[in-house]
């Protein structure tokens, strides 16, 4: 669970975006099986997501393309986003 990459040039893992914030997906990392699944759910580069719930080491709840999806902590780190400013 270590080695969570931190903000690098505005890019950050989805798992480190706080609840209530919005972000735009920039990259999906991981194996083909995993990426194919999240792509189908709408986590494509350019898509906007809203983080609904994000506590500690638990799963993350996000809204993407009008639906709510729960991602495990690991999965949330594989999706690289650019956090949008408030408002």
């Amino acid at each position: 669970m270590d080695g969570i990459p931190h903000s690098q040039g505005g890019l950050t893992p989805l798992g480190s975006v706080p609840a209530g914030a919005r972000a735009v997906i920039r990259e999906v990392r991981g194996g083909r099986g995993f990426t194919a699944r999240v792509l189908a759910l709408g986590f494509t580069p350019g898509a906007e997501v809203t983080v609904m719930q994000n506590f500690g080491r638990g799963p993350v709840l996000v809204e993407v393309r009008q639906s709510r999806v729960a991602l495990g902590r690991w999965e949330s780190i594989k999706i690289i986003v650019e956090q949008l400013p408030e408002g």
Partner: protein
Amino acid sequence: MDHSRPPDRQEGPRSITIALAGQPNVGKSTVFNMLTGLNQHVGNWPGKTVEHRSGTFVRDGRQVHLVDLPGTYSLTANSEEERLARDFIIRQQPDVTIVIVNAAALERNLYLVAELLALPTPLVVGLNMIDVAEQAGLEVEPHVLSAALGIPVIPLVASCNEGLAELVRVSVDLVDHPTSSRPNRPTIREAHRPVLEDLQARIAGHVPAPYPEDWVALKLLEGDTQITDIMRQAAPSAWQAVHAVLASHEDAYLDIAGGRYEWIGRMVRAGVVRPRAGVVSVTDRIDRVATHPVWGVLLLLGAFGLVFGLTYGVAMPIVDWLQVSVLAPIIAGSRLALAPWPPWSSGLIADGLLAGAGTVVAFLPILVIFFAVLALLEDIGYLARGAYVMDRLMHPMGLHGKSFLPLFLGFGCNVPAILGTRIVDNRRAQRLTVFLVPLVPCSARMAVVTFLAPAFFGQAAGLVLWILVLINVTVMAIAGVIINRLAFRGEHSAFIMEMPLYHLPNLRTIGLDVWQNTSAFLRKAGTVILLAAAVTWALSQGPGGNAGLSPLARLGRSLEPVGAWMGLGDWRLLAALLSSIVAKENTIATLGILYEHENPALGLAERVAQSLTPPAAVALLVVQMLFVPCVASLAVMRKEAGTGWMLLSIGLSLVTSLAAGALVYQIGRVIMAA
């Protein structure tokens, strides 16, 4: 590749086959149930562990065969379900495919539509849950969406049976007039178009029969494992060149998915009146509590309490009434009616069959109420939240939130729970979940200890029951952690789960769910358990009516040395435990037969209690809770996880139950002596 289940066109040209596709949580089962009613067949896809449902209905004198495809988000070969769904469309060529989409999550739902449009099947969209969408402030214009897609779009509220007749009419119409629809097929992004054309030219003439060439080219570019394998074998000569093209466009799959969503964006902009941004929905408000790591867990515990409170609070009085006021008179009556016949007939029927199976059927209220409350929680969308808050607690076992759902279902009956592990998308995690389910005490195990505990412990019975459940859950957690470390070396499996919007429950859906679970139990009670009760009775018959000389007594006695470690030196208790392998409820039925002639002034539980010291009584209950799973559970375990896991389950449950029983007994003796 299975070629079975041809669409039944044997009934003449008037019969048609419709495939029903859709993503999860779109109300597809509701549509299926509304259209076919009880005219449905539930089984498995041939050779697969994926459920196959099909049904028939008649529309305008025409037989319609409806096949419910597995609910999938896409049609790439990521899972068994996705392969089965697309293989059915490509190989069985249904006359028309209906795809149900959820209007409240239209964007994501159109992804499947985009994939289906690439297949050669006439398509009709059932735009479901328009009421839920309206509540969320979303307004969809079906006519405009239909014009944009180039295929019929029928608005539905399936739970209220609105729009279904129109959906079928339009679908049948499309079969008769196939040229009436001009689908707007999604195209690939400009950048990859030349590659796709190049691929298609290279594989032309090499693609095996029912597969469309353009679709195969697209799937190759998407890196679809199944299609890649098929083409590698079908076109060995062209493969090297094809492979080289693919290798230089490895990231094309990202663009293809992105391109589909761009196409979807155009469809949605045409057909949807966008909601005001920043609306806080009911779902958001509930989820602030329901998915919170602290409040969410407390709410889940509350839901647990509700399920068990309702189950035992409502069902127990009904069970008591059934046993005293219905079952007892029937047994007494049958004894009287059988009096003119030889005594063994009355013994077999009244003491064996009726007493055994009747007790089992009397547990039915517990099951019905448990399944009903659980189906209600699932239908309103709550159970997915339970999985969400449980996710972090499941990780030490190498499992994630999805495994929580079948485990919870196990409190009702292990058999549907083991079948329910299919929702766990990782094969390894699914097998481990299958293995852990029998450690969840099912309602039959609970009924046995609930029946015995008050006679053993009086006022403290409730506390003892909670401790027993806690022991089981602890053993389950330890077994999960150990197996994860040893067999899987802590390997990780992905947790990706949609959280549906909360909505009002649909009584028909819940009713059908309860009916399917209950009838499965009744079939078991009507066959296996009935037979077991008769066999147990026969085995307990000794010469001259002396049960102490019966074959069952001899078997029990041979095990007495083992039983003695746990304070269970009485062969009757061991025989009762053994018979629980047939069905957990059998413990009571067997005790009933074996303690029949003891002090008639006492109830059965009191008669058993008389012969046990307190430590031995606890040990008996602990062993009952952890003992070898029932044969029905073992049978489905073998089907879902294989013989190895089933044998491991038998071995481990035998060892843990006896070890825990002995431990509890020995500790208890030390405490009693002090």
